[in-house]
């Protein structure tokens, strides 16, 4: 057992921390207020080599998904600065990892080159299922037409809609209902004819992710931009990676709020006492509670990552689910306590607490929502399975 930072990736975690503070945090307020895609951040992260971290080493990356616990820690640190950026960074990092994992050597090299050129990849999978049971049904279908495919459909919550350079579509081949045979990833440049954006993303949080809906009308995708085998996108070593990262991202909002309010409480003094309010017992107690909860939740996230990396996603599934619950609830709790401690500045848009709070609230709702997480965890137990392994 070793709770220490993996030395192979210690530099990345340190750099993520630094970038969060020096690069992401100063711009976060503006992206949030203006509801803007964090383009400058992506440019800077690209310049620093961060957008390529999850590519394999032979393609110029650091293979960061080989240690998901470190990957999650990098995400968490970035999110301390800007939740929006961390979320989009996670989407891009996950999809380019998946493309190099599932693609042919030619595809892997080609997409990696695009990443190194600063191109941004988005991954669009959500459809209007409205199912309690979360079964995936795809309305987005492709049909063959000569040496290419014609895609039609509609996706919801498409992060970076209108902002990415490539859209990776989760798409079903027609005439085959079984997703485990018919689901493929289609890679299409954002300027391909037939993409239409329905700008209906109007959330009180995570507004910088530009998660609008997209409509595909006869989008043409050449055969060599179809990645992997039928069903690959829902392989257990692929699908859970997307959901896994949300925990780290949303917990990061809690971490950012915690850092800000501790700093505030150490510097804020009230008359006539003239001591930092951090020394008032109710406030120091609240700081202690926040810190302990933050650590516990981060450990849950890192444990899930470690399980996924060492025993595979199937073994990690319970832990990923539990980590999502712990992270989202903890982040929400911390941002709420932070606002109470800060008082007035907690509500002001000039200060970041209200932003972290809104972002953290989104974490409670993003599927699987926290109630659902609890039910899943309990169901696993009730069925006589261990759920998350006792490590």
């Amino acid at each position: 057992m070793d709770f220490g930072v993996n030395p192979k990736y210690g530099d990345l975690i340190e750099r993520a921390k630094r970038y969060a503070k020096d690069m992401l945090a100063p711009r976060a307020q503006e992206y949030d207020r203006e509801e803007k895609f964090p383009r400058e951040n992506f440019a800077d992260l690209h310049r620093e080599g961060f957008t390529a971290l999850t590519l394999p080493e032979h393609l110029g990356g650091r293979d960061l998904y080989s240690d998901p616990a470190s990957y999650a820690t990098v995400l968490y640190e970035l999110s301390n600065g800007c939740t929006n950026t961390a979320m989009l960074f996670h989407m891009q990092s996950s999809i380019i990892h998946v493309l190099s994992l599932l693609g042919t050597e030619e595809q892997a090299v080609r997409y990696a080159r695009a990443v190194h050129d600063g191109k941004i990849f988005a991954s669009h999978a959500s459809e209007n299922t409205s199912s309690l049971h979360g079964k995936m049904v795809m309305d987005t279908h492709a049909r063959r037409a000569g040496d290419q495919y014609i895609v039609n459909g509609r996706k919801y919550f498409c992060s970076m809609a209108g902002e990415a350079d490539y859209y990776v579509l989760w798409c079903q081949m027609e005439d085959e209902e079984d997703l485990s045979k018919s689901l493929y990833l289609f890679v299409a440049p954002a300027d391909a004819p037939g993409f239409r954006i329905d700008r209906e993303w109007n959330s009180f949080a995570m507004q910088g992710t530009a998660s609008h809906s997209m409509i595909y009308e006869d989008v043409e995708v050449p055969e060599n931009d179809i990645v992997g085998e039928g069903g690959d996108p829902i392989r257990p070593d692929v699908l859970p990676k997307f959901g896994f990262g949300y925990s780290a991202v949303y917990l990061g909002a809690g971490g950012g709020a915690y850092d800000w309010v501790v700093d505030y409480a150490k510097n804020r003094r009230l008359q006539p006492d003239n001591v930092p309010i951090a020394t008032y017992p109710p406030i120091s107690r609240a700081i202690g509670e926040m810190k302990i909860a933050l650590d516990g939740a981060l450990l849950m996230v890192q444990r899930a990552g470690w399980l996924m990396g060492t025993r595979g996603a199937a073994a990690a599934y319970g832990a990923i689910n539990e980590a999502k619950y712990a992270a989202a609830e903890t982040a929400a709790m911390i941002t709420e306590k932070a606002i109470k401690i800060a008082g007035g500045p907690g509500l002001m848009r000039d200060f970041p607490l209200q932003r972290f709070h809104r972002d953290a609230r989104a974490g409670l709702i993003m599927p699987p929502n926290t109630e659902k997480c609890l039910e899943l965890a309990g169901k696993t137990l009730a069925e006589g399975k261990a759920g998350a392994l006792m490590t």
Partner: protein
Amino acid sequence: MDLSFNPKNSDLIERAKALAKDALAPRAAGYDREGRFPRESFDDLIREGFTCLTLPEDLGGRDLFADPVSYVMVLHEIAKGCTNTAMLLHMHNAITHFLVTLGTQAQKERLASLVRAGKIIASYGGESGTSSQWNRQLDTRAKRTGEGYLINGEKVFCSMAGEADYYTVWCQLGEDPDVRKSLSLLLAPADDPGFTINKKWNAYAMRGTVSHGILIENVKVPADALFGEGGDPLRPDIIPKFGLGYAAVYLGAGAAALDWAVAYARKRKLKPDNLPIATYQPIQRQLGEMKVALEQALLMIQRAAWTLGTCGPEAAVQPISAAKYTAAEASALITDKAIKVAGGPGMMRDYPLERLHREARAGLVMPPNSEKCLDITAKTIISGDITWAGTS
């Protein structure tokens, strides 16, 4: 004990409810989005007589603070339609009541005629100091001149800055450093050129209150602008009434969220069951928890209001603190759970829950904040035995 709800002024509560539903609620999201003063809604309130409610009856009002239970329920109903509007109505009505309480007959009559003419009165006490206690010096000072008073200073969190017609300036008058003797209220027309608005209100909630800062430079007011004696604003029948109204206003956000969540849960169906989610036990449990919290907070508010009306302001200080705490925490809990019940729509700006959730957070922070309320309650308990109404 008689909990029947048929106060003298129940007609006002009914009218507030109708007005909130039909006129105020549809505009609430817009005021929040645009961060502007709820002018149209306030005009409705003025036309319907709601800005005259706390004037004495002989001056055209309803003397509503004599019936505090009705007063808080009117606010609560208004707040269910629009939290911002309710907050500002409370500010206007509370300060009007205080000025009338403190003023001479001539002052009362003049003020009443302004209010009846639709003028809006604001109240500015906050300064950028760092204490929540009233035992420190104010920066805003007034001094006597030949004709009246000259005021200088700076105020923060000035609700309706640039929108109200008259500003009630809380300031220290004269040289006495003891605020308990020198704190005074001076009423000044908002168009005095000595007022400069510092537009720094940029909150994530309660944006429609436009609570900017105001710089006060050489504002001159006549002798009859002074209401009451030095120290009067600290009288126990003055400040706690603000807190009582806040409780009712912020609970309104919670009540509106519960209404919305119930309606949503009854409509929203999920596949493959195709049943309203309101039929699922976990959803019912959440709705139940929200409901109990709402009822409990309403009872605490009504009890505090009743105590104020029956046992007087000093006896009501602790019940009001307790009501503010209960209401703010209940509203926070209810809006939290409402978003969980609604899922995705809970975070979308097209629906009211995210706004109500933000407004409830403001309720936690607005003075007296939850910690302060607990503190007031605890100190009362520790310093001696207390018996509150309803606890035998």
